[in-house]
């Protein structure tokens, strides 16, 4: 896959972990949600504290300060790298080595945000996200972090329970792979789409329908045989 936004994280165990990098659009949306939360909260706090005169005014300033500079830091450190906006979009900040972001990393990336905002509307940040290999803004580059789509808990799809149908055609590993994947995804597709996908193979197989292809997939995956 040449046009691929997947980040590869090398581990000491010798496998590469793969993560989908988050691009400009979901990150902007997450930012928008966070901004809404932040400013609504500040607004409410200001109204409440304005009842307490000058002392309330002072507290408002402190809270304003914390909200503007530390909202992201606190959430990223204590909430597995996700502010509420990021969580809503299934994003997460992590170090480029795949470990959870810590105080230093989060603080660097969020203080440098001040430069990302320049010269207006996050212009530097957006340019950096679009130009850098892993969609990092300047703060991310300085802190060694990136934002990824959190794969989260991904349950296995329903096992392919079709009756195995032997396939007596010599296929390469990649071809077998594609058919097995089809078998797994078939339960998530509607009938028309399944037929459409199966029809791609019609030049190779005579009278092939989705059901039959699922059977082949089941056979290729090896179900029905003893291990």
């Amino acid at each position, binding site marked *: 896959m040449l046009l691929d936004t997947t980040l590869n994280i090398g581990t000491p165990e010798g*496998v590469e972990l793969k993560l989908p990098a988050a691009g400009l659009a979901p990150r902007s949306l997450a930012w928008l949600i966070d901004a809404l939360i932040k400013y609504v909260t500040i607004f409410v706090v200001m109204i409440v504290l304005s009842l307490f005169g000058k002392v309330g005014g002072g507290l408002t300033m402190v809270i304003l300060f914390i909200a503007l500079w530390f909202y992201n830091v606190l959430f990223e450190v204590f909430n597995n790298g996700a502010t509420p906006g990021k969580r809503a979009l299934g994003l997460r900040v992590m170090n480029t080595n795949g470990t959870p972001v810590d105080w230093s990393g989060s603080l660097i990336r969020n203080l440098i945000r001040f430069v990302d905002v320049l010269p207006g509307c996050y212009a530097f940040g957006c340019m950096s996200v679009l130009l850098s290999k892993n969609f990092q803004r300047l703060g991310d580059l300085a802190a060694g972090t990136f934002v990824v789509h959190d794969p989260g808990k991904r349950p296995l799809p329903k096992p392919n329970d079709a009756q195995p149908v032997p396939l007596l055609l010599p296929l390469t590993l990649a071809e077998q792979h594609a058919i097995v994947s089809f078998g797994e995804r078939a339960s998530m597709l509607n009938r028309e789409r399944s037929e459409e996908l199966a029809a791609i193979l019609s030049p190779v197989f005579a009278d092939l329908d989705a059901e039959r292809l699922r059977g082949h997939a089941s056979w290729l995956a090896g179900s029905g045989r003893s291990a």
Partner: protein
Amino acid sequence: MKQDAFERKYRPVWEKFEHWVSILSHDHRRLRVDRDLRLAIAPQFPALYRQVCHHLALARTRQYSVALQQRLNALALDGHRHLYQSRASLVGAFGQFLTSSLPSTFRKQWRFMLVSAAVFYLPAIAIAIAIAFKPELVFSLLEPAEVAQMESMYDPANSVLGRERESDTDVYMFGFYIYNNVSIGFQTYAGGLVFGLGSLFYLIFNGLVLGAVAMHLTLIGFSETFWPFVAGHSAFELTAIMIFGGVGLMIGYGGIAPGRKKRWHAIRDQATAGMPLVYGGALMLVVAAFIEAFWSSSTWPPLTVKYGVGLSLWVALALYFMLLGRNGPE
């Protein structure tokens, strides 16, 4: 081995692994689940994690289906995240930070601190001297309205000093100083990313304003109110701005002269190396805001006491940065 057999054989291992990760991870730590259980699991966890990594590698080379690969990838990622996270305890780290890493980092980066101090104080001194000879120069730097505001703040006729004090507004001013001063500090720091230019700008600009205001108020005869007011918090506030500027310059230097590293790696390393100073600077500005709001504005202490406190804070800070953490670990 066919995929189905593989899955059937190892599914229990994966489920066990998933369960262990959820027990060991943050979410459960807060709920205080069975401590003994966690202690029993922890030593066996790495072995199980390596097994899952092995399965992931197998699934890839044998080209098992995408769904299975993705699931194993997610499992391994969870394990990786858990196993290799940093686990510094915040309380212990804070003590170590105060007694050792802050002052020793300061000394280690003394070149940047020195340059930052020079860029901050030399313009201040220069403009002060210039204004001493040509007092109207202050208006080339500040708007007349700003000058008038400064004058009204430190007018000896006022009963309280500082920025617009009417009544007992110490808490309000505390909040204002934190918001205003720490933000300036952070901006001075962040500006360093642009090859140090932002830091230089903020340092020079703040230095100029500082020198101009100080000399102007002295010339018009407000020194009795101005100097005792700033004496108390000056040590923490000015040093903190200088530190933020210095760390900004560190980052800028990483961008200008990355040496044998990639440019962004050099910047990242410089930023990481300067982190104790950023924490320290923020802490110092909070202390300065506290002093400024609750001590500097008070008019009851005699002048000697106010100057004395100011001077001893300067000395204490200098000794702190020179002496502490000499023998401790980095």
